[in-house]
């Protein structure tokens, strides 16, 4: 029986390792959590912002759809308004970012009377086809970005901005 007895030294060893382990875990958990937190945060419907545009009312002509969200910049909270050009291609809803890929002006649908069926940037006469493709010979060097879209209760929701998926190069 004597070799089953826990000596004073072993007892101290066990308890200290145990307590130390808890302490280490206590310190590490928040650190690890902190490091991988962005991974744990789930991306999903929450990132889509509601608009007042009814999906059923969209046609194949792009319309301006405005939406707004709150932006916090250090201590300064502000309501930011943004917009997208939205139209339907068959059943598919397409939302393009209006931000010109040249230097960031806002492009308009048929913004120039001499260029029908195109997006036009008034700043330096940048032109884009309806799917956002930049037209050679005008300043923009890439196609307009796209928004991810979702439909909820008949209304259009706009998600993150993604690179243009429509234009084939």
């Amino acid at each position, binding site marked *: 029986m004597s070799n089953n007895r826990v000596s004073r030294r072993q007892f101290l060893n066990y308890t200290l390792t145990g307590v130390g382990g808890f302490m280490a875990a206590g310190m590490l958990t928040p650190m690890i959590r902190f490091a991988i937190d962005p991974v744990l945060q789930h991306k999903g419907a929450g990132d889509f912002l509601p608009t007042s545009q009814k999906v059923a009312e969209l046609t194949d002509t792009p319309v301006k759809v405005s939406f707004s969200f709150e932006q916090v910049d250090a201590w300064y909270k502000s309501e930011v*308004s943004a917009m997208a050009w939205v139209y339907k291609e068959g059943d598919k809803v397409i939302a393009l970012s209006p931000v010109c890929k040249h230097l960031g002006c806002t492009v308009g649908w048929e913004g120039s009377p001499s260029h029908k069926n195109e997006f036009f940037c008034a700043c330096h006469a940048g032109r884009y086809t309806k799917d956002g493709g930049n037209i050679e010979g005008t300043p923009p060097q890439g196609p307009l970005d796209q928004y991810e879209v979702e439909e909820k209760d008949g209304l259009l929701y706009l998600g993150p901005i993604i690179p243009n998926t429509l234009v084939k190069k």
Partner: protein
Amino acid sequence: MQFHAKDVSDVLANKTFIDTVIVPVISIDFSETTMIQSSSAADYITNLTNFIEHQFRGRILLLPPMTYASGIDQTAQLAQMQEKIIAAGFKHVFFMTSEHEIHKLNEQFAVIWLPAIPLESMDNNMKQKILEDQLAKVIPLFTDKWANQN
């Protein structure tokens, strides 16, 4: 572009494209009866010029507002500012204001005068609408200038 370090470095890198400067001009009036009106007008011009910047940021540099104590003649200040802007290589300078006393200088300078609209009583949608309407009014002033020069 805004007058902050990041945008200004874009301006310097794209000088041939960003050839227009907007200077908001705002008077500050401390008299008890008109101070509220003065602040509301300042807010309006700030909002509107920012909205314009957002639409035309690839061609326009928006400066921080020139403010002055109301009633004090600004001809010299505007002239100096304009001279510096042109000397820096920009082609067009617009002063945007809702002050009558600045409007009177429009023979000498490109002054865009707009009556102040009190935005403080409006919700965001309404504000957005008003700014869009006002923007539609001023767009031709810019595009005409740009078209004449090219």
